[in-house]
């Protein structure tokens, strides 16, 4: 086998990577565009004026605040539920194990529009008014699997003899949990939590069904996409979102680099 890739393969591979990244780079360029009426390319002039304009916008700040609070609660719930499920499924064999596994995956395997409409009709039937918590419930549901994936991968790589050794040395289950299992699990949980946070912060499809009149950052963005009113401010917000989501994703990658592949969905 040759150890060098052919030119054709190299070209096709890097073209694919370029295809994935040119649009993101373009967003950054547009944030500095001085043109505010159309999407003309190349921008006629560059300015940082719109960053200041976006900074002064109350509606944008409120949307960011709501999204951050929702993501924090959804992540907290997902970390608890995902870790418990991982603890149950990592090694034990029991009747219905496959069914539980399927139930965990279902919220991201089914189209978001189905999850959204199901939750909305359930709220409606039970006469629950839309609130902060109706959004959180929807987000937590599909975030569980992300935490679960990371935690279960780490638990399967952790040797069970560590736990036995801890017990043999006289620790009880809680001490073993606190001093042996949790330190092993820590970075995987942090990575899963970060990804869950990024997922929730960005979610729009389920949110449109469970938010009522509330505006999360993605919903603000969606309104601008359908009816553009303030293009320059939208450009700046888009760059801010890219920045905000890259941080947790890269951090999660660094944390799980050791156990290869567990950061994949």
């Amino acid at each position, binding site marked *: 086998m040759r150890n060098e890739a052919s030119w054709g393969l190299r070209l096709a591979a890097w073209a694919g990577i370029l295809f994935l990244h040119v649009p993101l780079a373009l967003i950054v360029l547009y944030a500095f565009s001085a043109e505010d009426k159309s999407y003309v390319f190349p921008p006629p002039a560059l300015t940082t004026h719109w960053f200041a304009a976006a900074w002064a916008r109350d509606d944008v700040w409120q949307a960011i605040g709501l999204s951050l609070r929702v993501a924090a609660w959804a992540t907290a719930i997902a970390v608890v*539920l995902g870790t418990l499920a991982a603890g149950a499924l990592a090694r034990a064999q029991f009747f219905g194990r496959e069914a539980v596994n399927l139930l965990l995956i279902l919220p991201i395997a089914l189209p978001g529009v189905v999850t959204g409409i199901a939750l909305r009709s359930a709220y409606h039937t039970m006469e629950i008014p839309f609130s902060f918590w109706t959004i959180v419930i929807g987000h937590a549901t599909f975030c569980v699997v992300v935490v679960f994936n990371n935690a279960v991968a780490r638990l399967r790589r952790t040797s069970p003899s560590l736990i036995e050794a801890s017990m043999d040395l006289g620790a009880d289950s809680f001490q073993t949990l606190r001093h042996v299992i949790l330190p092993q699990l820590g970075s995987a949980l942090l990575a899963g939590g970060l990804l869950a946070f990024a997922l929730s912060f960005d979610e729009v499809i389920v949110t449109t069904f469970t938010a009522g009149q509330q505006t999360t950052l993605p919903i603000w*963005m969606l309104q601008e996409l359908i009816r553009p009113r303030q293009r320059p401010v939208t450009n700046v917000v888009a760059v801010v979102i890219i920045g905000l989501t890259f941080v947790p994703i890269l951090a999660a990658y660094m944390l799980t680099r050791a156990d290869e592949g567990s950061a994949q969905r």
Partner: protein
Amino acid sequence: MLAVPAPGPLRRVSDLLYGRPAALLALLLVPPLLWLGVIYLGSLLALLANAFFGLDDFTGQVRREFTLANFVELLAPANVDVAVRTVTMAVLVTLACVVLGFPVAYYMARYARGPAKALLYIAVMLPLWSSYLVRLYAWKLLLAKEGAISWLFAELHLGWLLESVLALPVVGANSLSFSRLGTFIVFVYMWLPFMILPIQASIERIPASLLEASGDLGAAAGTTLRRVILPLAMPGIAAGSIFTFSLTLGDYIIPQVIGDSTLFIGQVVYRQQGVAGNLPFAAAFSLVPIAVIAAYLWLAKRLGAFDAL
């Protein structure tokens, strides 16, 4: 003799759990099962039940009587059109993702080493996790009539080529951002990372000795690719295609922002429950992608896709 201290209450709970793994398992499982089983599965089943209800003609309220009328209405030509259009789009998007994604995955798995490999991995993973709406917005900028793609074609003196593509029936329109070709490009862009990662994982797992053996037995590089690598990468391709297929079927935002105004399944479901207020019909229509995906999953399972997830 060593004095054994009397066990504290915590210790007793601990011993109890250690002695009964089933109790521990139940304790671990109950909270996630309550959440997903009651809130999520409960909502899904309620939705399913709604599909068998109808609307009262006078009040517009949901009438809780068993009827199959929604499913009969699904067979109306307009609705069949929507389903066929969406499934066709999903199939084409999946094929395009395989063609574009395979070389990237192959290069990542076989040739990239060290920092270059880490960089490539991040380069594929970042778009996968970064904002869906921002990436969609980027394409609105790119595909606009005055946007970067038109500019590029004009600079290369290929404006006529773009014009003639846009003049084609069905896929064309007066600008890329209002054409079905635009919708297709954006779908491919959005789901491409979901295809690359599982293919890469499956190629990564092929032992190098297999490829050496194929070469030693006289196969040219192309033959090895076709007869050894492709069949072994098949589970990865199938796994990736589950994502590209199912995500395309359920999406209602991309065709709303980029494309001509023909409807896809997700949009019909969204409109029926929202503007039209016809939850029962929306519920029945949302069973279409679920049924298609279930059939697809069954097929993918036979191809061994779940070993590569």
